[in-house]
């Protein structure tokens, strides 16, 4: 580890902390329907869209209506995306002449983008037409992100409103998020990326002759626009197969920094939106702090593991950290940092190959994902995910002060606990359940590149990434087989909707409750004690669930390496 490496990490953290308040303030105004800087530009478009959809910004929905609207919208998005892929051969904007995508791959990809996962069992430049990339994938990158944020806002309303019945209007939240937040930021970011050298063209791939005289086809396309939303919406699906390790998708240290910042920006700001909407920004900061503690712990271990390097390589007389699978323009610190950010935030974009990380540092992205993407997390998903943990933490700890547990004045009772447990339960069901089947299924085991614990980690990582809607791949696993396409698709679907529905049910239940005024008998949920408690509950609940799987995967691999064994 170097001072320079740590400085880069600290600068990054500083930028995020500075962004939280202004962006949070702006987003709060957007979702409250207050006037913002951009209102004059978009207000007509916004009203027009509502008229078109037959709704109005004054119309409010019960949680069941809200959920139904959301599910309908996601299903429609899935069908459109599936059909676009299957029919792309006959559709325009297909200069490379891509044929129809296989049904199982099209299913996997459609689920993947609708659920904000962006798991990619395809290579973008060799499978998808420009039309699919722009009208299919990029559109879902926007609306799946907006959907996630809408859910978080709905859940916040559950806490902030009292004795009500409605939690907002899905169509309004979706529209406002896309129009006022995602679209303007992405336009700016796209221009910046183009300036930094990222291609943005509808032209054909470029043929070049290399110095050796060989012919090479260089893939280009509308990269910058997809790159902007890929990060901002924590989607992570790369235009190119190697994602942000590709020089066209991440040319230099500046573009790398912008990408890392935009992954966390909205998720971090949402904690402030939460604080503002419940009337106490410190509540938001406490949640942000809990996320921050987990994040810094992850970065420290990951950076340390990579910087320490491989003892077997050291034995050969080669000093230094582990550079395998990394881009020299980013180096160890920024590769480790990027890996932790992208898995903490459910983004899944990569600028280095996680498969090549040391066992112990490769375990950090895995753990981040296993915890359910609550460390900043996917846009919206991170906040509602951590609020589910908050409910469990408050329930157990709240009892210890001798009162029926309450959070922000709302009593946490059987219904909330039931829904939170349901959501927490569905993740290991998909992650561990599918891994357990795949590891004893010969055809599934055949897909892995390495034997032993490392191969096990590849399978475990795939299902964990899918169910947590992260989308990053450990690498090494050949995922484009019917078995993986279908089971990973189911995993992503479970991880998204089996969490969303309970979260909205909690919002619906909370919104009906009275707000109990705070007193000396209620323990404060904005101090370090609460932050510590929340971190502890996340680690213990998550850790206990996955300890056996981690033991036979990265832990045993790490211990074996110490004894000179590799797999």
């Amino acid at each position, binding site marked *: 580890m170097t001072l320079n490496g740590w400085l880069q990490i600290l600068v990054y953290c500083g930028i995020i902390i500075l962004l939280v308040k202004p962006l949070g303030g702006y987003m709060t105004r957007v979702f409250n329907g207050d006037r913002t800087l951009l209102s004059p530009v978009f207000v007509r478009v916004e009203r027009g869209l509502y008229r078109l959809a037959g709704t109005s910004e004054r119309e409010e929905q019960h949680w069941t209506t809200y959920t139904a609207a959301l599910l309908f919208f996601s299903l429609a998005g899935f069908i459109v995306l599936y059909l676009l892929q299957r029919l792309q051969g006959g559709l325009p904007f297909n200069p490379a002449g891509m044929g129809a995508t296989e049904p199982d791959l099209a299913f996997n990809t459609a689920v993947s983008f609708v659920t904000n996962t962006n798991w990619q069992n395809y290579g973008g430049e060799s499978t998808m037409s420009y039309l699919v990339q722009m009208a299919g994938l990029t559109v879902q990158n926007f609306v799946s992100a907006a959907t996630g944020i809408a859910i978080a806002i709905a859940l916040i309303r559950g806490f902030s409103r009292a004795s009500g019945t409605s939690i907002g209007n899905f169509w309004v939240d979706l529209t406002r998020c896309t129009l006022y937040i995602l679209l303007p930021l992405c336009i700016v970011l796209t221009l910046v990326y183009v300036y930094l050298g990222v291609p943005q063209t509808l032209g054909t791939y470029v043929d070049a002759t290399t110095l050796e005289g060989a012919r090479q086809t260089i893939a280009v396309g509308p990269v910058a626009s997809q790159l902007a939303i890929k990060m901002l919406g924590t989607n992570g699906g790369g235009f190119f197969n190697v994602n942000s390790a590709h020089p066209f998708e991440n040319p230099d240290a500046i573009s790398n920094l912008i990408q890392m910042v935009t992954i966390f920006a909205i998720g971090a700001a949402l904690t402030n939106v939460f604080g503002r909407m419940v009337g106490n920004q410190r509540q938001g900061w406490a949640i942000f702090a809990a996320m921050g503690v987990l994040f810094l712990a992850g970065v420290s271990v990951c950076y340390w593991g990579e910087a320490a390097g491989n003892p077997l390589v050291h034995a050969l007389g080669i000093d230094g950290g582990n550079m395998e699978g990394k881009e020299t323009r980013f180096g160890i610190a920024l590769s480790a940092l990027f890996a932790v950010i992208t898995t903490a935030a459910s983004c899944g974009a990569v600028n280095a190959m996680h498969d090549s990380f040391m066992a112990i540092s490769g375990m950090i992205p895995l753990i981040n994902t296993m915890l359910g993407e609550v460390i900043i997390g996917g846009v919206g998903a991170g906040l509602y995910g951590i609020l589910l943990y908050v409910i469990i933490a408050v329930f*157990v700890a709240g009892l210890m*002060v001798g009162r029926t547990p309450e959070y922000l004045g709302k009593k946490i009772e059987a219904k909330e606990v*039931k829904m939170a447990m349901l959501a927490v339960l569905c993740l290991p069901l998909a992650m561990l*359940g599918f891994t357990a089947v795949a590891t004893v299924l010969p055809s599934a085991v055949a897909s892995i590149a390495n034997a032993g*614990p490392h191969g096990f980690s590849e399978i475990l990582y795939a299902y964990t990434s899918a169910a947590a809607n992260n989308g990053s791949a450990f690498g090494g696993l050949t995922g484009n087989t019917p078995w993986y396409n279908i089971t990973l698709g189911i995993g992503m679907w479970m991880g998204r909707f089996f969490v969303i529905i309970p979260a909205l049910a909690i919002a619906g239940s909370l919104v009906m409750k009275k707000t*109990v*005024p705070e007193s000396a008998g209620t323990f404060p949920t904005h101090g370090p004690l609460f932050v510590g408690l929340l971190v502890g509950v996340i680690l213990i609940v998550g850790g206990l669930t996955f*300890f056996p799987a981690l033991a036979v995967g990265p832990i045993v691999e790490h*211990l074996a390496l110490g004894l000179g064994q590799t797999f």
Partner: protein
Amino acid sequence: MSQSKSASLMDSRILLPAIGGAFKKLDPRSLIRNPVMFVVAVVSLLTTVLFLKDVVTGGQSLGFTFQIILWLWFTVLFANFAEAVAEGRGKAQADSLRKTRTETQAKLLSSEKDTGFKLVPGTRLKVGDLVLVEAGDIIPSDGEVIEGVASVNESAITGESAPVIRESGGDRSAVTGGTQVLSDWLRVRITAAAGSTFIDRMIALVEGAQRQKTPNEIALNILLAGMTLIFVLATATIPSFAAYAGGAIPVVVLVALFVTLIPTTIGALLSAIGIAGMDRLIQFNVLAMSGRAVEAAGDVDTLLLDKTGTITFGNRQATELLPVKGVTEQELADAAQLASLADETPEGRSIVVLAKEKYGIRARDMQTLHAHFVPFTAQSRMSGVDIDGSSIRKGAVDAVLAYVNQSAAGAAVAGGGAVATIGTRASSETIRDLQSISDQIAKAGGTPLAVVRDGKLLGVVHLKDIVKGGIRERFAELRQMGIRTVMITGDNPLTAAAIAAEAGVDDFLAQATPENKLSLIRDEQSKGKLVAMCGDGTNDAPALAQADVGVAMNTGTVAAREAGNMVDLDSDPTKLIEIVGIGKQLLMTRGALTTFSIANDIAKYFAIIPAMFLAFYPQLGALNIMGLQTPQSAILSAIIFNALIIVALIPLSLKGVKYRAIGAAALLRRNLLIYGLGGVIVPFVGIKAIDVVITSLGLA
């Protein structure tokens, strides 16, 4: 019942039957009420069947498997034992209650005017029947006194041997079946059918026969069931992980891991904690009609307390003597004492005492003074004494002034005599002086009592509501708990404000009526607060029913007792504060043991995971940080620890985690440290110790 209060935890009369009870509770119908322990029983049964198959077919390491199975069953039995002990304590109390419910003969009257009666067995009485109860008779069933006054021994239910007065009308009209009339007679209208009397309900309550899960208990059970399912996933997926690595793990080891991981500690003790909470109230001589009420007590935000009896002593006392100009304190003290010598009210006695202690005037004997006592009447609103031709009166200021004016006018008409000149002495200046003194007293929350001797105004006695010692500290403590106290009083706002300030309550309701009491409760509840109150009169019934925790005094009316969800057998309104503490203790004990239970899992993983995978991943031996001797001893130690910790925590679950009024944040920090951090550390030590013992015994 007072005798059984001291039933200690280790009383063999409770422990021995509880052992039998533990086996009886293996009945699946009773086990299913507790999801966590039901799951343990199911997997224990499964492994037992597998073991028996192995015995027949000749499997390997039978001794080890047998020990694991033994401890699995012990885990279930220990949980049942905990519940049986908790219930046993209630049963002991129920038995002593049952003894009082002996067969009684009732003297049935055919109408209210009936002079004769018919003897019928008490069990045949119907609601609405009229009975006569005379000195020495046991009251046959619950009822309401319609005629008569009698002293009644209620020690059967309260444990208090001093007799209480029961009379028709008013707030002391309720009588309880099983209590005994000591003197005089009562005519009683029966209000409860056989089998549903107060004592019957008490028996059912303390036995826990009607125990239903409380809302919070249900929520906690969901959490525990959810944790159990998570660990089903965590352990059920291990065989395929092992198969991938080319190994296999015996079912009994998986079961051992599973049972140690799921929250058996809290699962086993959960119902014992609930029963013990009710029981703790009973030991306080408070009967909660439901567990829900006990829980609600812990959540109370606002406490309505009656001023009289709770905040102040029931009666006012003289604290000061304030003469008008031209009169010495000594003079006033002398007159005030003389006027009060025969006054047997607490106020009167306090005047005599004050004159004696502060002014050294010894109480004199009425007889030797040839004094004639003039008692208080509602018309004159004064009392006093006529002595040697002079007359002394004390009373409400306006009454005394009216008396002075009247006698002055009377004197003017009569003309002459000793009294004639007196009236003129009550100059307007003296009257103003008197009034300003009494206004000051009223402002300070006291009651002024004017004293006049032969038409001459002497001064004012300051009668004061004496706030109970230490009550201020109690309220400060409640504030620390986050509870707002509201004093309820019939006094005027001025007096109420002064006493409220002295006692340190947060708010008061002056000139309280049943209506504005009820609306105060509704108002608080609409703000999301939970309200507790106590009351005894029929006019308290609506408020008692509306409050989240309504404590009815046992001396109160039937209506009040029906409306409340708790009954205080000692009729001590101060107890509300303890009741809140007990409610909090119940919730805290649940939370603490849940935290402890979950925190324990870390050590158990470190014990079992390396042992489990040792055959094919020997590298994982590095995780054996406790240095446990063999894989078998590691697994066995974990499961033994898991079973024994249940027994070790029975006393805590029955006694409850101590509540301290130190503020929620400090309390949470403290409990997290003890039960969270302690829960992480204790099993590391415990498992290691058990490992040392069982390896030295050669068990594994």
